[in-house]
């Protein structure tokens, strides 16, 4: 009998650094189980009410369809539908209850797979919640993908301004965008509760340029088999946002915002991070 009460691993971002690609790859791995929906947003719902409500509404919309499908389902299809129904009922009933999350993982524990969840906004969780994850849940491993902070924020900016309600001249100064690029703080927060060997730090460039190498490293970290044919879409699935030149004032804003992160990352990781620094680190 397993004692799982949380995911074995968490993908915590960064947002716009390839987490959807990561989800697709791990979802296809035979020894890994991931929820149907990529992002559960459980832990940030502990602090953010709007997420909660939106997620709840989506789940409520799904439930009637699932019940209808269950009524007409053949015996063999029922398990999958029941899993999905369970997930949605949980979400629909969610009241920020830690017990909900524990229950969710207890039930998938029977599958005898490595189970995980990927929610990029977990990157900026409050350190208190990170501490709780480490001590109150069976979660052992954390996956973090880094990307050049200036480019990352520009990518998120483009995504956010696709929504008409976001003012293009305000959005780039928003904490919701900027905080998710502060890699130094993010790494320090997570490292203060997860030992270095429990933290996998990968790079967006590797996903793009050598995805199989990246996946092999990741599989080693997760202690699961690596075979190229587990990942048929590894080389094609990276989502790229529209090409667009970043306006100078926004670019400058991002560059100045991330000076400390660029310095820290280059010093600590060299390689890709040194290139980011060469590109955007201002002379002292």
């Amino acid at each position: 009998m397993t004692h799982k009460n949380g995911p074995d691993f968490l993908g915590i971002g960064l947002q716009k650094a390839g987490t959807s690609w990561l989800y697709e790859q791990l979802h296809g791995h035979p020894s890994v189980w991931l929820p149907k929906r990529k992002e559960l947003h459980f832990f940030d719902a502990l602090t953010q009410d709007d997420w909660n409500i939106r997620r709840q509404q989506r789940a409520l919309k799904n439930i009637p369809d699932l019940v209808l499908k269950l009524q007409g389902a053949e015996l063999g299809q029922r398990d999958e539908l029941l899993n999905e129904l369970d997930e949605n009922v949980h979400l629909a009933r969610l009241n920020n209850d830690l017990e909900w999350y524990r229950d969710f993982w207890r039930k998938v524990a029977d599958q005898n797979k490595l189970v995980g969840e990927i929610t990029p906004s977990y990157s900026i969780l409050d350190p208190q919640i990170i501490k709780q994850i480490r001590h109150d849940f069976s979660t052992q491993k954390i996956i973090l993908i880094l990307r050049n902070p200036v480019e990352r924020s520009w990518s998120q900016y483009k995504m956010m301004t696709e929504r008409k309600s976001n003012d293009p001249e305000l959005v780039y100064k928003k904490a919701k965008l900027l905080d998710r690029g502060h890699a130094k703080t993010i790494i320090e927060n997570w490292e203060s509760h997860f030992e270095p060997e429990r933290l996998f730090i990968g790079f967006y460039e590797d996903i793009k340029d050598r995805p199989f190498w990246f996946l092999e490293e990741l599989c080693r970290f997760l202690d699961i088999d690596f075979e190229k044919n587990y990942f048929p879409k590894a080389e094609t699935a990276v989502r790229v946002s529209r090409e667009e030149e970043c306006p100078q004032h926004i670019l400058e804003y991002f560059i100045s915002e991330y000076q400390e992160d660029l310095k820290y990352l280059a010093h600590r990781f060299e390689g890709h991070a040194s290139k980011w620094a060469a590109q955007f680190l201002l002379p002292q």
Partner: protein
Amino acid sequence: MIENLFLSVGAMKAGTTWLFEQLKDHPKIHSTPEKEIHYFEQVSGNSNPISYSKRRDRMIQVIADKNQSYVLNHLDKIQWYLNYGRDEVINDAWYERLFGASAKREDVYCADYSNLYALLDRRGWERVRQNCKKLRVVYTLRDPVSRIWSHYKFHMQFIGQGDKILESGTDHFVGMLNKDWFWHHAEYDQCLDRLNKFLAEDEFKVLFFEDFRKKPQESMNAFCEFLGTDSIVLSSTAVDAVNASADVVMPVEWKEIIQTKLEPTISALKSKGIVHESWKI
């Protein structure tokens, strides 16, 4: 470990569903959507009442039989059945989870109305004790002849022969009485002996079906006093039978067969002084 566990252990067809229905709204008694969990029989008894496939079928029945708006309005209940039916292997933690946060509350009883528990042996009661800090058990008795007749009718309805209760014939009726799984429920004396052996005096109380019918509020008050919890005010419909079996009169010949077979039980009950004044024995 459950803080307070209340078990209604039978007898079958002696008003346990009535009790369950009345207590559903009791603020300090947590009943589950499924009346009879039968967990301790499953893990320590001789039968398999809640195998994975049985729980799974029940879960699917509950969910798929309901219309969509019912499901949306009863998410707690749907969630409960998903928890109940989706685990292939069940254990003590599974049982405790059925009661949610109530399991850890000192002022709430977790209630399970499993009639098969009247047949639990030492192993079964040891398992019960491993799972709770405080235990209260009631065993509800009913006029033994009427109970057997109700049980028989109920069984015939259960197997889809509800229209052939009398036509089933004396041989079939006698055959049923001779089946252990049927007759053990009629042996109140033996059930009482087991319960008295494995439970302390303050843990165990005998109730009477006839009191539920004739003086429901008084019975409820006495029951709640036994648990040490506030009583509830019953509605005016609380005298009505719940889960009643078909209204078919028992043939005289069959009644005599029952009475003969019941003799040892009746005399044992009389010597224990556990007989309700209304019983026709």
